[in-house]
Each structure stands twice: as structure tokens, then as C-alpha cells.
């Protein structure tokens, strides 16, 4: 559980948008999605935590942006054994979903770590600040290109991709900043499937298979999947990931659009 849940979610969600510009039509301020994260072992499961994803407006002196917030909290029953309070935020452009600031603050069973990225698009760099629980702070510059996202913005960016024009087996790549390193994630479009979705009934969903070039976090190929509703909102409704010790499933429980 040291690798937190949101990393697993986010590495699922990638795409190559090098040649295409994103225009956000999938989400807006006020959207709130709730998920249940479960650990699976031989088809037996246990619910571990609740994950909420919220979109809100934020005003700066020159622009109005979206604050994309993802928070993971363990259920009360788990708090005495392994308490998780993770907060991930990305401040993005309302139309292009381009991130400006990313913040990650994790507290997993006493293991604490804070990461902050400040994007300098003109210089093509990200100023990354990493704070560890012993109080040590490191600053580093990471070179980025126009198509580099962070763990949160990538989750929202992929909701703006036109999957209807994709064919089964189409491969896509995207660069995601994970722990101040640019990782390349490969996504394979795996077609349409019908799923039972919380308070939406049966819905057709786009299935995407995700793999990391370096399998540090995820195990196997085509074993890690995400399903997005095949409508204009492309809501992530189910995520399944194989990790070195079992598998993780994240399913949607509440939708507020």
C-alpha cells in the first residue's frame, strides 16, 4: 500500500496528444465523483477507501482556472490499522486542461510525502519540490514538452479524447510526471463494453488497457484497464489494476454533474 491508490488510477489514464490539442467539453465546475477502492484476492474483496474527484473554479489575478482535486480517505474501520489521507490537486486551464501547478500530499499509515510541481511552459521546465517526512526538502528542474501532464490533469485530459474514431488495438502514448520523473505510458484502445454504473444503470463504456514502459507499479500487459462512459462526459466508472500483491479495483459509487 506504499504506492498510493491515485498513482494506480492515474497511470491508467493516458493518451498521445502530441498532435492534437485538447478542448475541454467533458467536465465543468461542480462535478463530483465518488469511488470505492477495493483490494481483491482470488475474487474475494475488501473495500479500503473512498476516493473523491472534484472540479471547482479558482480565480487568479489574470485568469480563471479549474482546481481538480482528488482525495483518498480510508474507511473508518481501516483508520486504526492503516490510515490514508491523500490529497492530489492540479490547477489547470479550463479549455486546454494544461496544468500550471500540481500538488500531492500523502499520508499513508504514517508515511508522509509532499510533492509540488510549478509548470514553466515558456522555459519548458517544471520546478519540482519534494518534501519528505524527515523534513528534508529537495528542489529539481524537470524538462517537459507540450504534452506532459501530471497524475491528476491526465485523468481529466483523457476524458476529452474522441474514442469513436479509434479502432481496437490502437496504441497511444502520453508523458506523465510521476515522482518528478517523466514516465511514458502506453494506452491501448480495447473497444466498447457494457457495464452496470452506479445511479446510471447499464452504460456503454470505452475500455482502455494501460501499461507502463517500466513496470514498477503495474503488473502485466492488458491486465490494467479503465472504463469510461461512452457519452460526452466520458466518466471513469471502473478501474482494474494488477499490482505485485493482488489487484486493486476502483468503482464509481456516486455521480454529481
Amino acid at each position, binding site marked *: 500500500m506504499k504506492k498510493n491508490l491515485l498513482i494506480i488510477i492515474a497511470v491508467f489514464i493516458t493518451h498521445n496528444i502530441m498532435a492534437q490539442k485538447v478542448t475541454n467539453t467533458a467536465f465543468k465546475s461542480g462535478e463530483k465523483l465518488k469511488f470505492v477502492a477495493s483490494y481483491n484476492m482470488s475474487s*474475494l474483496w*475488501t473495500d479500503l477507501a*473512498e476516493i473523491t474527484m472534484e472540479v471547482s473554479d479558482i480565480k*487568479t489575478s489574470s485568469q480563471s482556472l479549474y482546481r481538480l482535486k482528488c482525495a483518498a480517505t480510508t474507511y473508518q474501520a481501516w483508520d486504526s*490499522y492503516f490510515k490514508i489521507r491523500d490529497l492530489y*490537486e492540479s490547477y489547470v486551464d479550463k479549455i486546454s486542461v494544461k496544468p500550471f501547478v500540481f500538488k500531492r500530499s500523502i499520508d499513508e499509515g504514517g508515511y508522509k510525502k509532499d510533492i509540488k510541481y510549478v*509548470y514553466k511552459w515558456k522555459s519548458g521546465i517544471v520546478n519540482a519540490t519534494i518534501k519528505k517526512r524527515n523534513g528534508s526538502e529537495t528542489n529539481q528542474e524537470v524538462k517537459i514538452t507540450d504534452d506532459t501532464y501530471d497524475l491528476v490533469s491526465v485523468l481529466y485530459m483523457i476524458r476529452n479524447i474522441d474514442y469513436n474514431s479509434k479502432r481496437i488495438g490502437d496504441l497511444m502514448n502520453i508523458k506523465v510526471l510521476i515522482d518528478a520523473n517523466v514516465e511514458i505510458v502506453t494506452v491501448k484502445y480495447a473497444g466498447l463494453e457494457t457495464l452496470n454504473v452506479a445511479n446510471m444503470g447499464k452504460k456503454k463504456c470505452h475500455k482502455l488497457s494501460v501499461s507502463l514502459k517500466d513496470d514498477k507499479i503495474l503488473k502485466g500487459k492488458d491486465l490494467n484497464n479503465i472504463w469510461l462512459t461512452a457519452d460526452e462526459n466520458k466518466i471513469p466508472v471502473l478501474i482494474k489494476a494488477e499490482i505485485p500483491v493482488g489487484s486493486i479495483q476502483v468503482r464509481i459509487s456516486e455521480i454529481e454533474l
Partner: protein
Amino acid sequence: MQNKFLITSISILGLLFGIVGLVMSFLPLGTIDLIPSICGLFIGGVIFLLTKKSRIRRKLVLSVIFISFLAILISLFTVLFMENKVAEDLKFEEKQEQSVEEASEDLEEALEDLEDLEDSEDSEDSEDVNPE
């Protein structure tokens, strides 16, 4: 004699499964904690049937069955009737609000850099339009 030893050994194994299952049934492990309890109940049941016609005392076997059954009941009760709830955590909520305030300075810095980029792009465009 040998049979008795074997049956006692297997019963102790069943008892261990039952105890582990009982302990796990109090943890929030969902259906996973059913695994040792079911193993204990299975072992207990098989030994019970095998020793039905023998003179071997079955107190231990009955304990295995009872403990495993109790563990299964507790597990099923927690899975079916205990609702998953997130505790109210004011500290975490405060942290989330505070985080927005802390981000404002960084946002200004990032947007300033973007404005520079837009300005330079605009001047390049105007140079294209007016080459002189």
C-alpha cells in the same frame, strides 16, 4: 493409536484456522477473512464425519467446528450489515482548504511565465504579418 494422533494433529490444524478466522473476522477485511474460517469448518466437518463411529473423543473437533462457524457468522454479519463510512476528519478538510491558499502564489508564478510565452508568440506573429 496412530489414527488418533493423526486425527488430533489435523484437528489442531483446523483449530488454528478457526482461531485465525475468528481474529480476522474482527478486522475490516471483507470476505477475505472467510478463507481461514471456511478451511477450519471444512477440516472440522471432515474429522467429525470420520470419527462418527469411533470411540475417539470429539471435544476438540466440536471446538473447531464451533469456532470456525462463529467466525463465519461474524464475518458475514460485518460484510452484510456494517456500512463503509469515512470518518469526519476536520484536520484533513482544513488541509484541503489551506492548500488552495498556498497554491495561489505558485499559480501567479506559473501564469506569469505563460504570459511571457504568449507575449513572445504574439510578437513573433506580428513580425510575420509585418516583416518590415
